[in-house]
Structures are given as C-alpha cells and as structure tokens.
C-alpha cells in the first residue's frame, strides 16, 4: 500500500501559472506587485536600538547603520545579496554598509507575494520579492528626502541622494540619512514612488560581492545549529523508524547511569535524551533500549512501492496538453523507448535537522533555520496547544535547504521535547536519524 501523501505545507501553495504570469506582466509593464507598506513600530528585537523603522524591511539607525529585514532566508542560493541589491540600490546606500536580519514569523509583512505564505523556495525569491523590496526602499528614500526638505524648507525635488547622504546642491549642504531618520520615519509613506530605470541601477543587475560569505569563511556565521542560549541543555532523539509507529517500551537504566545525562523524554512516537552536551545526549540515546510498536506500515518496503507504482502507471494517464497527432508521429520514425526510475532520496543538507526551543510561562521561543517561519510558528503552537502569537521564531541562515526545511516537522518535534525540559534545549538529529526521518523526494 502506498503511504498517503502528507498534506505538505508547500503542495497547495505552488505558484499557479497565472500567478507567475501576473507577476511577470507586472514587471514588464512597470506596475510592480503591490505590497502594503504600513508604518511598522520599532520591535523589541531591533538590531540597532536607536533610529527609526521605515517599514517591514528597512530600519535606519541614527549612526547611519541600515538594517534590512530579509523576507527570504539565505541558504546558499545568494538571496541575501540579491535582496540587498534591490534594497540598497533604491535606497541609495552602499551594499557593504547594511546589516541583514532574517524576518520573524509574520505573514502580513513577509508573506510570499506569489505563494501567499511565508516561504523561501521554488527558486522564486528574486521574481517575487525584487519588486516589493525596491518599492519599500524607494519609499524609505522618499521619506528621508522629504524630512531633509522640510528641515531646510526646500522642494524635495531639488535634493539628490547618494551613498546614504542627501544633498541640496543649490545651497551647498548635505545631511546623512541617520541624522534625519527619526524625522523621516514619521513622514507618511508616499502612495506612489518612482523606481529607478535600467540606466540608473548601480547594484541591480551588476556583479557584486556576496554579503553572507565573509562571516562564513571565518566561522562567525551562526546557523540554527550554532545557537547558544544561557543555561541551554543539549538533546538528541530517535523517532519511530516506521511512519505512524509508537514507542512500546523504553529501558532507561543504562542511559541514566551516564554522567551528564539529565533526562529521558519519552513521547508517544519519539524518545529524546537530554544532557550536558550533545555527545553525552548521543551516548545516552545509544544506551537506551527502545521497543517500537511499528503500526500499520511495518511491512512497507521499496519493492512494494515500485510494484504499486508500476501497476498504477498501467492505467490511463492524465492529458495535460494535446497538440497535433502524436500517435501518428510516433509511428513515423525510430522510437526510443526507455524507463527511468529514481528511488526515494533524502535531501541531506550538510546542516542536519536541529532546533533550539524554550517553552516557559505559556510561551515558546524557537531558534532554527527554516524556509517556512510561519509554518514553524503554527506547527509549534498546535503541538503545544497555545496561540501562535505566543511562539517566537528566531530564524537563522541555513546550512543547506534543498526543500528539506520547507517542512516544520523538526521544529514540532523539538518543541514537544522542550515542553518537558526546564530551560532552553538544543535538539540535534544525528545524521542517521536525519536520513531516517527525511521527508523524501518522490519516487
């Protein structure tokens, strides 16, 4: 029997052809996909405490540091740089001056313009986000110019911007963005902003240095797996090796005898060991004797899956497009006949699944690298029986996604474990468990 496909978050939100075309037409006609740019209040986690937030994507500090909140997560594909190109070009700042921060779970401000959910995937970031980000940056630039114009009592149209400086050439004066940031943030965002044209681009379409790689070359980058919280414990887990299976019995005695093993968490479908470091937790897990009740799928195997697929392929297919007389053409010439089969494959990102979570006082804090912060938030909330607003997702750079982190399953397992642990706990999958619990690509 074939396993029923999981209702994956991504499956029902792939961009329809119509949505893609609508987006593309928007660019061609110069009518960018509209995003609302309501004024956004400064957030408690604002990276730079002074200055002003212009919209969901841009914060300008009084010392001129510009923080870009990136709606799409960086996992090696280079989108922190491409998003920064869009923002920095329209804002008129140097690309090496900016601070890049991952967006929080917030579908209102960071929902994917094509998918309608908060997700990074499908090679869609530049297509979906370049328009809204340019508009956001152009809007912030206009607000800064208006603030400077008001300060000097001149027409905003007489002012120019370059490298974070507003210049009034006629009167020989200039002001830095940071100096007018506070005043500018209270300027109403313009309803309509003029975007740069092709000849005005300094960064868009030009080769630039990646903004994420210098820290990656020196080990400074903090991926989800590198998160350290005060008082944090370390855990590793084993979930049922058969989908739908349950824990039948766990002998914890040998694990509990290992110095540094603090806790064994037994849930209905997984077992985790919590210790003073990851190695201790792994030793503890190895020392457990777990009996599984594998359930209805115990007999499922690859041969049976192939047989089922072969049988299904003998039936009538679905006609996607019919044009010309294919049957006649196939008879007319040499027929090349081949069968291609691909097994289930793990995505196997180098950074294996991990998630740090702290469940306390009715709230849940999560530190992870995810392609779907919104689903991570709602998945954690559902698992804990709390409102999604009580779950904070702190997203991180990702050590390889390949689609594996389009599913929030790791976050859900981690928060379920964390609910039984005092203080924050970093849950790391072993590579064996990471492969065993992959949501495989299709046959």
């Amino acid at each position, binding site marked *: 029997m074939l396993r029923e496909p999981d209702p994956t978050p991504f499956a029902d939100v792939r961009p329809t052809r119509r949505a893609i075309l609508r987006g593309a037409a928007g660019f061609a006609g110069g009518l960018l996909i509209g995003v609302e740019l309501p004024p956004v209040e400064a957030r408690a986690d604002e990276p730079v405490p002074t200055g002003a937030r212009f919209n969901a994507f841009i914060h300008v500090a009084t010392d001129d540091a510009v923080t870009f909140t990136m709606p799409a997560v960086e996992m090696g594909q280079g989108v922190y740089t491409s998003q920064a190109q869009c923002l920095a070009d329209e804002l008129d700042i140097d690309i090496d001056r900016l601070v890049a921060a991952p967006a929080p779970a917030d579908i209102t401000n960071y929902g994917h313009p094509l998918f309608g959910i908060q997700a990074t995937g499908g090679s869609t970031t530049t297509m979906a986000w370049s328009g809204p980000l340019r508009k956001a940056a152009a809007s912030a630039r206009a607000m800064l110019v208006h603030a400077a114009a008001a300060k000097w009592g001149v027409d905003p149209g007489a002012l120019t911007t370059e490298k974070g400086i507003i210049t009034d050439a006629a009167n020989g004066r200039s002001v830095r963005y940071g100096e007018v940031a506070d005043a500018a943030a209270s300027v109403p965002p313009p309803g309509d902003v003029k975007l740069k044209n092709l000849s005005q681009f300094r960064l868009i379409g030009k080769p630039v240095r990646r903004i994420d790689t210098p820290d990656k070359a020196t080990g400074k980058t903090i991926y989800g*797996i590198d998160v350290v919280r005060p008082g944090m414990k370390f855990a590793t887990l084993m979930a049922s090796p058969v989908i739908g299976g349950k824990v039948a019995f766990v002998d914890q005695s040998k694990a509990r005898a290992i110095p540094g093993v603090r806790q064994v968490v037994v849930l209905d479908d997984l077992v985790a060991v919590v210790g003073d470091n990851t190695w201790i937790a792994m030793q503890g897990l190895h020392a457990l004797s777990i009996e599984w009740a594998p359930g209805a799928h115990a007999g499922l195997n690859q041969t049976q899956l192939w047989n089922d697929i072969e049988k299904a392929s003998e039936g009538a297919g679905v006609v996607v497009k019919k044009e010309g007389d294919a049957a006649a053409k196939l008879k007319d010439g040499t027929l090349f006949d081949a069968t291609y089969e691909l097994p289930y494959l793990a995505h196997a990102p*180098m950074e294996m699944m991990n998630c740090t979570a702290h469940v306390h006082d009715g709230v849940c804090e999560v530190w992870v690298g995810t392609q779907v912060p919104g689903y991570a938030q709602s998945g954690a909330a559902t698992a804990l029986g709390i409102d999604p607003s009580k779950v904070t997702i702190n997203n991180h750079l990702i050590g390889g996604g390949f689609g594996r982190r389009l599913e929030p399953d790791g976050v859900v397992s981690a928060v379920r474990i964390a609910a039984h642990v005092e203080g924050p706990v970093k849950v790391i999958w072993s590579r064996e468990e990471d492969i065993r619990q992959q949501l495989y690509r299709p046959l």
Partner: protein
Amino acid sequence: MPTGYVIEVNGTVHTVEVDGGTPLLWVLRDVLGLTGTKFGCGIAQCGACTVHLDGVAVRSCQLPVGAINGRAITTIEGVGTTPAGAKIQKAWLDLEVIQCGYCQPGQIMSASALLAANPQLDDAAIDAAMAGNLCRCGTYVRIREGIKHAART
C-alpha cells in the same frame, strides 16, 4: 567521571571538565562555544568538523579530548592568523567559493593544511587531499580553483 583536560585552542589555553572520550568537536562547540567547527556526520565521512592538530588536518568528531596530549589545536576561528589559512580564506572570497557555507570551515581547514604542507599543487594532489570534505551545494570546482588561486598568492 569527568576530569579536567587542558587544551590549547587558537593560542588560548582552556581547562575543560568533560569525559576523556568526548570528541573534540563537542568540546569546541558545546563547552567552549566555538561553533565555527561543524557537525556533519559524526563518523569522519564528511569533513565538516576538520580542525588542525599541530598544523595537520584531523576530523574533530573522531578525536577524543583525552588523546590530544598538549598538541596545539587550530579551528576556523583561528586559522586566519596562519599564512596559509589567510590565503585560503581570501581566495574563498575572491572566487566566491561559498554557497550555504556549512561545509566550508572544514573545506578551508583541509585546504589550508594542504597549502601549508605543499605549496606546489596540481589537480591530483588537491583532489586527493580534499576528497574527504563533502559539499552538498557542489562547490568542488571552485574549491579546487580557490586552492590554486591561494597557492599563486
């Protein structure tokens, strides 16, 4: 029972209270907070955890802290202070070798040990030395070019 082990990492001496069998990887990451060294497999098959032990590239996931015996440890956080490490890190940026970057601390540690030991490198020598470092993004071609680029500087 855990006892204190004295280890020197990037020129700084630490005393760590762990079991002697604890792999250096987890001492670096979980005890000292040096998270630049990565966990990728735990069985010396991927190279993400590569560090230098007296300048030689080793897999820290297979090196018990109790077996270090005073040898100097260099990690990705410190390798930039060595001539070969600095050249490799610069080459990695000059050629934009890095994508997701998770394997790159290990790649850089292996490459810098190789360059320090043998500045005259051909493709065969590079491939032999780097074969144990996996990259899921597939940056292998640029890694090879990066090492040659560094060797020329």
